[in-house]
């Protein structure tokens, strides 16, 4: 996509090289962009990462498979539950562990609640990057707190849940949890409507987001973009539908697709995805089986004595539709209780590949908005 930079002969001006980050109020963590500006227009933009790198993969090679779970909470700290789920799916594919029926439904409920939390927070931060003085962000966080209290009631911690295990979930849901979940799921659409009246047709937001940071479809597919960003460009690829893992095939829901693929489409796709998640939650809460245990016997035994779990030699790649995109775990096992190789396929990291392509020719103010619409979390980018 060659940027149409004004090449008519002009007054000879110098380009300005600005470091946006790593200490910068709106880079979602410690992320730096070396931007070369011609006045306000961006000519070159090189992302610089690695400030948050703590090599989670090397640490995991010294831990048991169960020991890795608390570390996955710290990957994308907005969606601890889906990070655990991705690792659990990978281990189950590696060792062929069966998941109990009730465990599957609890996992889907937790994953969709995490999607609500993530998309609400991201929309709030996107508005904060555009300059709204925190009001949409605080409305988003007010709703997020209610769901985090649900996570705390079930797993024991609001953000670092460490709740999903291969074979199901670590502990069964406490009494009264399902009723509280129903309350929140029923109250959420009202909040979304209020959120949309504040944002979706607001003229200032329309001007700031439409035709900004457009991502054409072929570039999106070739660059391995996944998640709401890909669907905003119109590609119908949702891993919940493609792989059909867990109980998603038994649940009816739609996949919203955008047309232009700019910041406005990504924003609205996230809002529509939240409405779809609410439909999934209603169906999952309705069909939650009460008979089967929340974790399969093999999974429970593994939880009790992690050292005894020795998966067969070989490798496996498990992936799920995390709120930010395709989160995958590639595990190589050499028969010992510790993974030989533990690779994380981070959606935020790979979605950043096209940051420069989208920002060329845009204004400085748009670079921040585009970065906000990509929805990255630096702990997952740097691992």
């Amino acid at each position, binding site marked *: 996509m060659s940027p149409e930079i004004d090449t008519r002969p002009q007054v000879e001006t110098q380009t300005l090289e600005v470091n946006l980050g790593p200490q910068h109020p709106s880079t979602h963590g410690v992320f730096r962009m070396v931007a070369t500006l011609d006045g306000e227009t961006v000519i070159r933009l090189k992302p610089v990462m690695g400030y948050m*790198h703590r*090599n989670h*993969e*090397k640490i995991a090679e010294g831990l048991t498979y169960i020991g890795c779970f608390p570390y996955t909470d710290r990957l994308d700290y907005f969606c601890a539950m889906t990070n655990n789920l991705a690792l659990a799916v990978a281990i189950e594919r590696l060792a062929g562990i069966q998941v109990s029926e009730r465990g599957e439904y609890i996992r889907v409920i937790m994953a969709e609640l995490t999607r609500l939390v993530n998309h609400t927070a991201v929309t709030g931060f996107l508005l904060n990057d555009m300059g709204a003085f925190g009001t949409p962000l605080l409305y988003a966080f007010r709703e997020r707190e209610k769901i985090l209290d649900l996570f705390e009631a079930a797993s024991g911690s609001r953000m670092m849940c460490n709740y999903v295990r291969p074979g199901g979930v670590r502990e069964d849901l406490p009494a009264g949890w399902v009723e509280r979940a129903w309350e929140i799921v029923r109250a959420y659409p009202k909040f979304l409507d209020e959120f949309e009246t504040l944002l979706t047709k607001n003229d200032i937001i329309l001007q700031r987001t439409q035709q900004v940071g457009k991502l054409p479809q072929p570039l999106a597919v*070739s*660059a*391995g973009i996944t998640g709401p960003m890909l669907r905003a460009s119109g590609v119908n690829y949702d891993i919940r539908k493609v792989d059909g893992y867990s109980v998603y095939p038994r649940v009816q829901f739609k996949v919203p697709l955008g047309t232009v693929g700019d910041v406005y489409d990504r924003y609205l796709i996230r809002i529509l995805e939240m409405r779809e998640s609410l439909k999934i939650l209603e169906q999952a809460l309705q069909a939650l089986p009460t008979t089967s245990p929340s974790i399969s016997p093999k999974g429970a035994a593994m939880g009790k004595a992690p050292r005894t779990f020795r998966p067969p030699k070989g490798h496996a790649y498990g992936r799920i539709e995390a709120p930010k995109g395709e989160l995958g775990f590639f595990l190589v096992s050499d028969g010992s209780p510790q993974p030989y190789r533990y690779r994380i396929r981070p959606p935020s990291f790979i979605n950043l590949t096209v940051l420069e392509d989208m920002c060329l020719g845009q204004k400085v103010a748009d670079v921040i908005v585009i970065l906000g619409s990509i929805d990255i979390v630096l702990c997952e980018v740097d691992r």
Partner: protein
Amino acid sequence: MLPAAEALKTELEQLLPGVSVTLEGTALAIAAKDLLAVSRCLKDTDRFAMDYLSNVTAVDYPTEQRIQMVYHLYSMSQRHGPLTLLVNVDRAQPELESVTPLWRSAEFQEREVYDLFGVRFQGHPDLRRILMWDGFEGHPMRRDYVVEDQDNAPEPVR
């Protein structure tokens, strides 16, 4: 749908005569030299239409003196996959052609493999360290990398 591994192997060998494809479970192990040929064939023939390279990573086997590159390929248009490609590279002189010209998603992941494993990729548009700071020596994800004492780690040069 993607054919079973054996049928895939035979089909590939018919399409690309000089290529030797061996089977490892459901994955296809190919030699380093025909990586580009196989990937272009997988990407362009509409029978496979592997237009989405989901994951590029490396696994270090110090005892066998080799680093194994792992590619997970999917097709977004025909919604099938994964097809796992395994490529072995000598551990002392790890050299390989880059697949970034075919799939842009490999750009950052190959830079990460170069940074953490030391595998050089020819034809990569911008092969630099991505996670470590530029002045860092050594490749931390290699199994023989000694994690030096944290207290007197060298001051990062930035």
